[in-house]
C-alpha cells in the first residue's frame, strides 16, 4: 500500500498530464463523431454573448454588400405580387374567397426563421458558424441553413437556449445531397478541405452530360433541405480514373467570407418522413423473415 502511495507521489505530474491528455482527446473524438461535447451548451452561451458584441462592430464593414443582396431578393419577391399581373380576359377575375380554410392551399412544409451570424471562420478544415437563435427560438439539430439569397450554407449541429452551431459546407464531414438542374442527376456535395471557394460534387456518373457552368441545386429527396435551392455552379470537370464517376468542382453561390444574415429552415414533416422510413424498413425486414 505504501509503495502505491509513493509511486503516485513520485509520478504525480506524469499522471496528471496523462489524465488531462486523455480527457482532451476523449472530448475531441467524441465531438468528431457525434458533434456533442461536454459543457458545449453552457460554453455556447458564453462565447455567443461575446461574439454578439464583437459582431456588432464587424457588421459595419459588410453592410453594403448585405444591403445589395437583400434589395435584390426583395425585388424578386416584389415581382411575384398579384398586383403586377393583369387579367385581360373577362372570364377570369380575381375574387376574395370568404371561406377561411382553403383546401387548395396545401399544407405548410417548410418554416423559415431569420438568424444572424455571430461568428464564422473559413480558415480551418472544420468550419463552424455560430448564429444568434437557439432552442428557445425553435431551432433544433439537423435544420437547414440558407443564406439571405436562399443559397445553401449548412446544417445545424448543436443548439443551446439562445445560440446554435452550424456546420457549413466548408467542413470535411459535411455532406449534402444535390442534383444538377439541367440533367437532374443526383450526387453528394462534400468538401476536400482545400479551397473555401469550391466544394466537390461526387457521385455523378460519367454517362451524365455535364458542362461547366451548370447549376447545382439541393436534391428533392433531402429530409433537411428544401428542394431546388441554389448550391453553386460547376467550375471544373475531371473524371476519376478509378471509378465510373466525375469529380465536379463547384463554385459555391455563397461567399462564406462575408456572410451575415441567414435563414434557418425547418422541415415540418421531417419526423413523419423519418418515421415512415423506419417503419418501412421494419416491415421489409419482417417480410424477409417470414418468407425465409
Amino acid at each position: 500500500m505504501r509503495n502505491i502511495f509513493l509511486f503516485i507521489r513520485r509520478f504525480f505530474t506524469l499522471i496528471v498530464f496523462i489524465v488531462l491528455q486523455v480527457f482532451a482527446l476523449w472530448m475531441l473524438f467524441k465531438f468528431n463523431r457525434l458533434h456533442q461535447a461536454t459543457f458545449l451548451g453552457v460554453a455556447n452561451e458564453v462565447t455567443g454573448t461575446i461574439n454578439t458584441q464583437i459582431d456588432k462592430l464587424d457588421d459595419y464593414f459588410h453592410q453594403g454588400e448585405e444591403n445589395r443582396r437583400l434589395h435584390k431578393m426583395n425585388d424578386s419577391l416584389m415581382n411575384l405580387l398579384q398586383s403586377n399581373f393583369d387579367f385581360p380576359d373577362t372570364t377570369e377575375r380575381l375574387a376574395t374567397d370568404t371561406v377561411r380554410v382553403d383546401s387548395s392551399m396545401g399544407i405548410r412544409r417548410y418554416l423559415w426563421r431569420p438568424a444572424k451570424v455571430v461568428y464564422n471562420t473559413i480558415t480551418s478544415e472544420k468550419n463552424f458558424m455560430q448564429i444568434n437563435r437557439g432552442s428557445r427560438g425553435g431551432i433544433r439539430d439537423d435544420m437547414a441553413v440558407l443564406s439571405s439569397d436562399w443559397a445553401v450554407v449548412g446544417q445545424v449541429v448543436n443548439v443551446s437556449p439562445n445560440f446554435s452551431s452550424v456546420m457549413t459546407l466548408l467542413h470535411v464531414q459535411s455532406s449534402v445531397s444535390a442534383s444538377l438542374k439541367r440533367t437532374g442527376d443526383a450526387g453528394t456535395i462534400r468538401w476536400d478541405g482545400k479551397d473555401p471557394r469550391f466544394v466537390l460534387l461526387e457521385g455523378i456518373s460519367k454517362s451524365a452530360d455535364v458542362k461547366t457552368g451548370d447549376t447545382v441545386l439541393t436534391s428533392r429527396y433531402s429530409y433537411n433541405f428544401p428542394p431546388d435551392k441554389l448550391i453553386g455552379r460547376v467550375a471544373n470537370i475531371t473524371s476519376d480514373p478509378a471509378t465510373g464517376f466525375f469529380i465536379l468542382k463547384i463554385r459555391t453561390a455563397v461567399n462564406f467570407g462575408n456572410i451575415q444574415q441567414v435563414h434557418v429552415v425547418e422541415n415540418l414533416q421531417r419526423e413523419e418522413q423519418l418515421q415512415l422510413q423506419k417503419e418501412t424498413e421494419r416491415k421489409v425486414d419482417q417480410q424477409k423473415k417470414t418468407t425465409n
Partner: protein
Amino acid sequence: MSDLVKNIFRLAIFILVQVYVLHKIPSLHRFIIPYLYFLFILWLPFSITRIGLLLIAFVTGLTLDYFTTTPGLHAAACVLIAYARPFIINLLIPKDTGEFNYREPSPRAMGWAPYSVYVFVLTLMHHTYLTFLEWMQIGTFLGFLIKVAGTTGVSMLLIFTVELLFPRKIKFRTNTA
C-alpha cells in the same frame, strides 16, 4: 500588479486576439492559421508548480476550443507543451527555480539564443501535435509536413514581433520581493 491579476489579463487578451483577429485574417495560404495564444503558457512565471502549469494550460486550450468549436483539440496541444516546458528550461538553463534573476522567461532573462530555442521547440511541438490531431482523418503526409513548417514559421515571426514591440517590464528579483 500581482502575477495573478497580470496573467488573467494576459489570458483574456491572448484569447480575444487569437479568436477575433488571428482566426479571422484572410488566410495567407490555404491553411496557415497564425497561432499566438500559446505564448501565454510560455510567459508564465518560473516559480509556478508543474501541476499548476498543466491545469492552467488545459484551461487556456479549452477556452480557445469553445470559441472555435473544436473541443479538446487545443487543450491537448497546450497540455503537451506545459508538460515539456520545465524540461526544456532545465536543459537550456540548468539552475534551480529559486536562482533565477527574473520572474518569467523572456529574452532578457534567458538571453536571446536560449530563449529562441525555447520558443522554437515548444512552438514546433504545439503545432506538430495540433496538426497531427487535425489531419488524422484527412490529408496527406506531405500536406502535414508543409502545414507544420508553415504554421511554425508564421508563429515564430509573430512571437518575435510581439517580443520586440512589447518588451515586458520585468522586475529584477530582489531579496525583499
